[in-house]
């Protein structure tokens, strides 16, 4: 269990991790750099879920905002000709933030299974719309061009993952993780613990539990959307099945639970483990990949309720 005291700002840790990734770039083989970048993208979505988990909430439809981010970026690129990754990211975040703000008025009163199910329904509605919209390529989706940054365009010989894109993803993920870290240490983060532990008491402390949930929901949505933008820019393609379908949302929940809610680093670590294991599993035991996921999830639920991060806590000897 996360207790109040092990939320502590890890500014130095985040800066160090980002610098290490950037410094390692020349040494990383292409697949490793790609895995790292994709893990940051997915990790952002799981980070959003982690915020919700700290509020005692689990969304089985976070693919909704992942898809909104991905599609917003892809659409802006395809139909408006925007290639700047910064602008595309802002577009994705703005789209998801607006929709989450509106939907938030419905979900902020829901808890437990009903919160999970309502979000599942939202994401399945978006999936249905995307899969039936011919202009967006229906179930096949459509492709996204190579992004630029502030006028810097990669040469024709460079692959999709340039240092510019890699650096952009690493630095923005680090910034976002730092912000979330601050938020979790602020009254907003503690209000989340209040919602999870005893909402009635929180209300009698003059805090709007619904308002706090609404805020967390919007934050989680923006994080998922940014993850969606990164993923689409890295993969170069977007489809409904790989973004909005409930199985994708299930994967994100898996990663968030695997990592645990103890530290902002946890979702990124868990997502990296997830990506690495998937790469090898799909190569050597493709028919047992989901089984592996399922067994891992069961083991985490039964024996490691604090997720991978609780191992770190245990090593540091402060999980009294």
């Amino acid at each position, binding site marked *: 269990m996360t207790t109040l005291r092990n939320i502590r700002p890890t500014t130095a840790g985040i800066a160090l991790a980002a610098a290490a990734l950037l410094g390692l770039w020349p040494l990383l083989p292409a697949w490793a750099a790609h895995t790292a970048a994709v893990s940051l993208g997915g990790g952002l979505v799981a980070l959003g879920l982690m915020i919700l988990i700290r509020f005692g909430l689990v969304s089985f439809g976070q693919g909704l905002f992942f898809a909104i981010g991905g599609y917003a970026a892809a659409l802006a690129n395809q139909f408006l000709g925007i290639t700047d990754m910064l602008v595309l990211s802002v577009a994705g975040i703005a789209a998801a933030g607006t929709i989450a703000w509106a939907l938030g008025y419905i979900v902020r009163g829901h808890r437990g299974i009903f919160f999970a*199910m309502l979000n599942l329904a939202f994401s399945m509605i978006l999936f249905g719309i995307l899969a039936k919209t011919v202009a967006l390529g229906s179930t096949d989706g459509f492709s996204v061009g190579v992004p630029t940054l502030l006028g810097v365009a990669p040469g024709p010989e460079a692959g999709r993952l340039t240092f510019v894109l890699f650096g952009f993803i690493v630095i923005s993920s680090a910034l976002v993780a730092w912000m979330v870290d601050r938020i979790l240490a602020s009254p907003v983060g503690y209000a989340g613990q209040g919602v999870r532990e005893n909402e009635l008491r929180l209300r009698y402390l003059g805090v709007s539990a619904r308002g706090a949930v609404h805020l967390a929901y919007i934050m989680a949505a923006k994080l998922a959307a940014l993850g969606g933008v990164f993923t689409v820019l890295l993969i170069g393609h977007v489809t409904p099945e790989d973004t909005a379908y409930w199985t994708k949302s299930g994967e994100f929940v898996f990663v968030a639970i695997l990592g645990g809610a103890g530290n902002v680093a946890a979702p990124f670590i868990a997502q990296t483990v997830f990506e690495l294991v998937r790469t090898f599993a799909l190569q050597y035991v493709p028919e047992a990949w989901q*089984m592996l996921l399922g067994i891992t999830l*069961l083991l985490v639920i039964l024996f490691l309720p604090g997720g991978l991060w609780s191992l770190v806590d245990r090593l540091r000897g402060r999980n009294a």
Partner: protein
Amino acid sequence: MMALAAIVVDSLVYASWLFIVSIGLTLIFGVMNVLNVAHGSLYALGAYTAAWGVGMYVGGAPDAGYVLLAIMLVAAIVVGVLVGILIERGVLRWVYGRDEIVIVLATYAVFLVLEDVMKLIFGPESYIAFQPRFLFGTVSVAGIPYVGYDLLLVPLVALIGVGIWAAIHRTRPGKLLIAVIHDREIASALGINVARFFTVTFLCGAILGALGGALSAPLISVVPGIGVELIVLAFAVVVIGGLGSVEGAAIGALLVGLGRTAAVFFRPELELFVVFVVMTVVLAVRPEGLFGKPQTRRI
């Protein structure tokens, strides 16, 4: 006029199918507070096993008759009992008492495992078992020909629904079950073996899930992924009606059935998500679903 009749009959048939594939889910939740994601796997396993059994039998006896129905029933019971015991004893027993969302995740884990187990057992190809569907010929309703098997789903499901209702409200074990639903601790203190009620309920729910799959086998092509699609649909039905309510599941099935059939007739492109629109609207207005009881809390 004909279109209206067609919509009504189609909706009824589809609603009956929805009810039979989701009733086990709501039954288990009502008694145990377990939202069983692995219900999708039970459905798929029931469908696979029934299709495989029918295929094997028809291979040796091309004019097999009603015995095919018996094969389907046996397939459902075998799958339900075996897999049900495995899930309840092997997994759920260890997570009872934890947060209900943790229990959902545990059953989701089981669902993931069973997805691959099915691929390992049955392979990637599709199984087709159309033969039972033609046992009852065709029936004409308002001038439209219907497959007898489809229409028979309606009375069959009505029978199952009434049976469950009567078992809960009109028998002694059913009344004890209501006590368990109402307050586990007091029931336990009164000497009711709550653990056994849980096991039996879960097995009944599991068998119903597998039966839903077995009855669906003649209607669909049984391929990997049918459980993935089914479970979200079943969620929608039971959440709309109110988790844990048998009457609610019936109403939820009717609403979803009507909505989908109307979509198919008038706006086919809406078919994929009309179910979830209904679910969203109901949840937004009544978070506990139509027949769900709002949780009250003593302070």
